[in-house]
């Protein structure tokens, strides 16, 4: 039988030599411990985000927010300190992509903690990845501030713990924005949400929220697979059911697709989406106008003048104005750096103590940003917004009303079941 021909003219031997040389050179660089000039000096934050895959629409924005915060803090100290950096040390954000997969996310988290020796982990949107990492940091005793997951399950037992903090809003808070639409249009609602735990929770809490202000009548509920191409069958059902409003818990690619397909098909019913997301609303274009949604961040927030400057900086940095996720990513880094600065050290235990006690007043999201001691969930205001056409901001979020009691659906402290896991040791 004929000998195997080598690649295009290069003799097999030289090819092997070249290739092995290359592999060895790269591996040597990889296997040797990382060496950097100020390795002991800098504050290292492991930024782990969904930069590709199903949730990349929000993951990328979240990462950009974090990068901007680090940039500003390193330049002037930002709102953290009056010198560049935090504690007078440069802040380094090391970015990793979870690829929207649990195995990859966990491997990257390990890499950040064990190879890059980060002092704290930050980021994430996918709750399944978050939970896997939460398990890991429990053993490693490294703090992790989740700045993107809306699924409040991550602060339920057995996932909650001393080292884990949930930085952005959860479903029990954000759904309250639907109460405006219910009061205005009526109590007969159709619920459509992604077919996984975040989606089920959207619908569950939507119902609770609406029930508190009007008599709820469930016209129907559906759970299309996450990131479906084709929502037409569901839209047809909604049309037939003739509800007063549709409560939407669809994210990822389906966010824009559902809205667009629905309006294309002539469905004129009032829409309320769980959360306002600028990239998704832009993708849906004109079909998203008139929809209300919940958000924790407003660019023009009468209580927080700084938010507008942040929005302009964000636009200069990325080319577009931020939605809620970009703000969350930004805010989370500021909170972390502020905590480290107040702790006076990068010792994990001190960072955790500082985070538990922080009352961050200079943030862009809410007048006073803090974590509940019982489950490390962040609490802040919730706004009902409407998507409107705006010459400057394009598909902007216009404030309709601020929710009066944003904690009304939260499990009260003392009953969360997390209290035990918050103890040291």
């Amino acid at each position, binding site marked *: 039988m004929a000998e195997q021909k080598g690649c295009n003219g290069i003799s097999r031997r030289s090819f092997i030599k070249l290739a092995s040389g290359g592999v060895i050179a790269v591996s040597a660089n990889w296997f040797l411990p990382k060496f950097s000039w100020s390795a002991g000096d800098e504050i290292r934050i492991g930024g782990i985000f969904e930069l*590709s*895959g199903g949730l*990349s*629409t929000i993951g*990328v924005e979240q990462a950009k927010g974090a990068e901007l915060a680090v940039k500003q803090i390193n330049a002037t100290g930002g709102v953290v300190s009056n010198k560049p950096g935090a504690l007078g040390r440069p802040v380094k954000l090391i970015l990793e992509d979870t690829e929207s997969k649990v195995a990859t996310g966990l491997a990257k988290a390990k890499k950040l903690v064990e190879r890059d020796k980060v002092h704290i982990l930050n980021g994430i949107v996918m709750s399944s990845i978050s939970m896997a990492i939460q398990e890991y940091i429990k053993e490693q005793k490294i703090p992790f501030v989740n700045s993107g997951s809306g699924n409040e399950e991550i602060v339920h037992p057995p996932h909650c713990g001393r080292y884990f903090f949930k930085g952005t809003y959860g479903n029990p808070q954000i759904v309250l924005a639907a109460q405006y639409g219910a009061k205005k249009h009526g109590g007969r609602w159709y619920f459509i949400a992604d*077919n996984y735990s975040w989606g089920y929770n959207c619908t569950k809490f939507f119902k609770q929220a609406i029930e508190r202000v009007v008599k709820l009548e469930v016209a129907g509920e559906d*759970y*299309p*697979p996450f990131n*479906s*191409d*084709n929502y*037409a*069958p*569901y839209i*047809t*059902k909604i*049309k*037939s059911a003739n509800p007063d409003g549709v409560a939407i818990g669809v994210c*990822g*690619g389906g966010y*824009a*697709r559902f809205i*667009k*397909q629905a309006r*294309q*098909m*002539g469905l004129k019913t009032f829409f309320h989406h769980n959360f306002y997301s600028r*990239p998704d609303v832009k*993708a*849906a*274009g004109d079909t998203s106008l008139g929809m209300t949604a919940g958000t924790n961040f407003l660019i023009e927030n009468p209580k927080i003048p700084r938010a507008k400057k942040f929005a302009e900086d964000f636009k200069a940095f990325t080319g577009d104005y931020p939605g809620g996720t970009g703000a969350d990513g930004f805010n989370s880094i500021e909170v972390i750096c502020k905590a480290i600065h107040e702790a006076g050290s990068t010792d994990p235990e001190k960072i955790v103590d500082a985070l538990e006690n922080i009352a961050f007043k200079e943030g862009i999201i809410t007048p006073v940003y803090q974590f509940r001691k019982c489950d490390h969930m962040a609490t802040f205001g919730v706004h009902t917004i409407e998507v409107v056409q705006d010459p400057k901001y394009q598909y902007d979020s216009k404030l309709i009303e601020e929710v009066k009691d944003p904690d009304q659906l939260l499990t009260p402290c003392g009953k969360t079941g997390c209290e035990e896991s918050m103890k040291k040791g």
Partner: protein
Amino acid sequence: MTLEFFFMQMLNGLTIGSIFILLSSGLTIVFGLQGITNCAHGVFYMLGAYLAIKVVMPLAGNYWLALVIAFLFNFGLGCLMEYTGIRFLVQNKREGTHVLVLTLGFAILIRELVKITWGAVPQLAEAPAILQGTLTVGSVTYPVYWLFVIAFTAAIMATLGFLFMRTGLGILVQSITMNSEVTQALGTNAPRINTAVFGLGTGIAGIAGVLSSPILGVEPNMVFDLLIVLFVVIIFGGLGSLLGVVVSGVIVGMIISFGTALMTGMIAKILAFVVMIAILLVRPLGLFGKTGILD
């Protein structure tokens, strides 16, 4: 279930079925008659959509031009792929699995290149202005553009049908598959015809990409998203049969549409797979299949 609901779901089934039909038509000829497992078929679907939304529409703003360019570009690219990679493997009498690996590698490669060039964020295109809006007949309201997709697909399939059945092209392709040497001895330039037919299929996939971009959206995972449904369609319809693809595409579209509405999307998907496995076990020829590629 009201009559109006039934009609709308039926139209939904036809719309999504149309996309299946267009994509499957190329695949059934290539897989069914030429015996090539082309995992890269989705690449042409994706590139058609991306060309439209990222190149032609921003530059020229003409949707019809986008359709034409999508066809020509993907026809050319398909011919290129066939002429270089696939023919090389076939002529060297490599195992069928090698073609599968080649096309799979090519699909991954192009998908990542698209991600690098245009990012991974899903987009939705705009339907052309004259096709926007809805049409109301009685109590049924339906988007004009979606009706257009159905009509346009019918037109393309009619043309293909004519091409294959009336001009003898279909018989030619089949005879090339059955016995290439004899067919060539009789004067046909078999390799060139194989290439052209392959390119025709991929070109139509490109058109499908443009057509579906305002409905299903545009993202790099388009490459693999629908692939398995397409195989269900062509196996059900019978390999190598365009008529089979049309009938089967409509039926599968209906199953997905009604199945999703009446059960859950997940059960509809499971059902589709179970149906395919059953068909492969019981009647591999499908509805109208002639050749025995599958046994």
